[in-house]
């Protein structure tokens, strides 16, 4: 009973934390992008526009639910829920501190990668079910992109796994606490693997410069073209949660997770995650978008060979 209670409390705490954090991070992104473009961002709703996400949510809740006549109704309804679910599901195995972790499973990294790979399913589902050419094009692009970038993502995530000798995320963090963060120890292996992971992560969560599935200048709004109201909100939420969880995973695998001096582990983990998340924003509001073919070329000509080399390097480092 006690175990169940602890699990439930932990899950609820993590979910609430992530959802709340996402809402205010969206606010933060709007302020941040505003500052980058010498604007102010939201200021009028609540102090410094802090109530903006709440207002958006209240509005989206009131919007009419429009389903296109020729859409595949079941899939159309399922896709946004699945998108949010997949993104949140990945958070289960992320250790936010030595004790705050939803599920301790031995194959945590494998679970994360698997869930990350499934995330493309609802996106393509939405594209297909909308029966809209822009949505379908967006879905096809998302599919091609995710499958391609899955390869460097998995290979670069294998580097810390090999170095730590475990697939349990908590064990990887513990190993880093013992041996030093994999980002800098060994630096010739960790730094490129981290960069690769970050790039592939950007591509997986369809962020600029890899946001060709959304590409609002050419595809209206990509896969979410036919979605409004709460369904769109779920997609939006899923996208942000995905990025947030991926940032958390990157900091656990490469930046030592909860490891850090002077402060409790949870603080360090949150700080690292948010830092990476802000970095992703920074990319988003600074860079342009790649073309589809450039995207593929970068992946298969550069990232995959580099990832394979790093994997071999990691093996050699451990063996020698």
């Amino acid at each position: 009973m006690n175990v169940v209670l602890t699990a439930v409390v932990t899950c609820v705490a993590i979910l609430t934390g992530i959802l709340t954090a996402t809402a205010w991070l969206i606010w933060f992104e709007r302020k941040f992008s505003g500052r980058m473009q010498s604007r102010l961002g939201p200021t009028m709703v609540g102090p410094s526009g802090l109530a903006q996400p709440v207002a958006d949510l209240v509005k989206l809740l009131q919007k009419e639910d429009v389903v296109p006549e020729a859409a595949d109704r079941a899939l159309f309804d399922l896709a946004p829920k699945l998108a949010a679910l997949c993104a949140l599901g990945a958070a289960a195995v992320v250790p936010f501190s030595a004790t705050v972790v939803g599920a301790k499973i031995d194959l945590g990294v494998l679970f994360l990668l698997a869930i990350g790979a499934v995330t493309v399913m609802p996106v393509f589902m939405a594209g297909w079910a909308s029966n809209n050419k822009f949505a379908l094009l967006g879905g096809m692009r998302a599919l091609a992109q995710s499958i391609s970038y899955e390869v460097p993502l998995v290979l670069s995530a294998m580097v810390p796994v090999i170095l730590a000798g475990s697939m349990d995320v908590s064990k990887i963090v513990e190993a880093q606490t013992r041996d030093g963060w994999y980002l800098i120890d060994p630096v010739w292996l960790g730094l490129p693997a981290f960069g690769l992971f970050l790039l592939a992560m950007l591509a997986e969560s369809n962020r600029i410069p890899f946001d060709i599935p959304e590409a609002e200048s050419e595809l209206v709004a990509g896969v979410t073209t036919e979605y409004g109201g709460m369904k769109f909100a779920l997609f939006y939420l899923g996208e942000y949660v995905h990025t947030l969880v991926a940032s958390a995973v990157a900091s656990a695998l490469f930046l030592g997770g909860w490891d850090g001096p002077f402060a409790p582990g949870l603080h360090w983990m949150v700080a690292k995650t948010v830092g990476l998340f802000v970095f992703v924003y920074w990319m988003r509001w600074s860079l342009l978008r790649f073309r589809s073919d450039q995207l593929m070329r970068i992946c298969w000509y550069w990232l995959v060979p580099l990832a394979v080399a790093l994997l071999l390097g990691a093996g050699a480092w451990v063996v020698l």
Partner: protein
Amino acid sequence: MSERANLDTGASWTHPLYATLEKLPGVSLGLASVDDLLAWGLTNSLWVFPMATSCCGIELMAAAASRIDLDRMGTIVRGTPRQCDVMVVAGTITVKMAPRVLKLWEQMPEPKWCIAMGSCAISGDFYRNLYSVIPGIDTVIPVDVYIPGCPPNPEALMHGLLRLQEKVHARRRGEKVDRDPNPDLIRVTQPAIPRVCERDLGRNDELSKLQADQAGRVTEEQMCPAVDVPFEPPPPATPVFAPDFEGLLRELGVAVAADGPPLVPVERHFEFARRLKELGYRQLVSIVATHWLAGTGRAGKEEGASEHLEVAYVLRTVGPGSRLATWAVRVAPDQPIPSLVPLYAGADWQEREQFDLVGARFAGHPDLRRLMMAENYPGHPLRRDFPIDAHCAPWR
């Protein structure tokens, strides 16, 4: 049926259950606060669908950019109507565009509002009586806020959005929406930094003195220093070839007209164009059809002339020393003219345009459809007997 009618007019029809609930103590107060919360959400997250067709669209963009920044009030611009709450119609809406605007409007989920930005969207402005423009977007979709101006500046757009917020709040509280502007909001349109315009210069002594001082200190030479740029006249262009247009006219027996392009008989028109192409006139510049009523013609009044179309063609040689060739064909309004599409691919849309606007019929054109006007447009608007106040669209 009668209930339905009540619903449509927005008259005071309430669901019986709701009416019973409202009588319970405290419920109406609670409902009022819920209503306030809902209205607060609606008004503070007005996502804009930019129906921007002309210069007002530029002001709309400026309103979203730095300095004005619509994002301050939570307003962002989304590309798909499904995610938008306010359609800002910024620009002239044509007869052909109107059904598309209506369609996009219908794609937007309720609750939704429309802002008519600028005089064209409000009334059609000086295009109002034009054959191709609808007199105001409110003839097609319901408009909540009108923003006057040509174009309105971004501050005015923001003012309009604030007025829309008031309106939404008032509607939620069941109040009648006040038509007079709120004096507190007027200052939005008055910039904090006053602009100096010419009429202020006379009144503002200090400023005019300053300007006079500066003008006195600058000599004419400083203001406009002489620059010596050596000028070499370009070498005279030598034509690659000088096609013998007059010779062709003589060969085909076409008289040179004093008051316009030579008139080619319609039977020889295609042959004439083919010969010209062989001579080197490889580019079709334009096709212009003009409609003349009985008794009129290219010279103005022409006694005994029947109603006719005069279709003028302009060809050009490509390269240095370019030459033009022009001729015209005179046909009865319904008489077909041989199409030049087999010779010039560029004739395709030109002929479609002339068919659309003047009603010239081109025989042998692969796809003679309307090009500019709406598909169901009645008649050809550039014919001289086309009534200027035609009821050419259901909303006129």
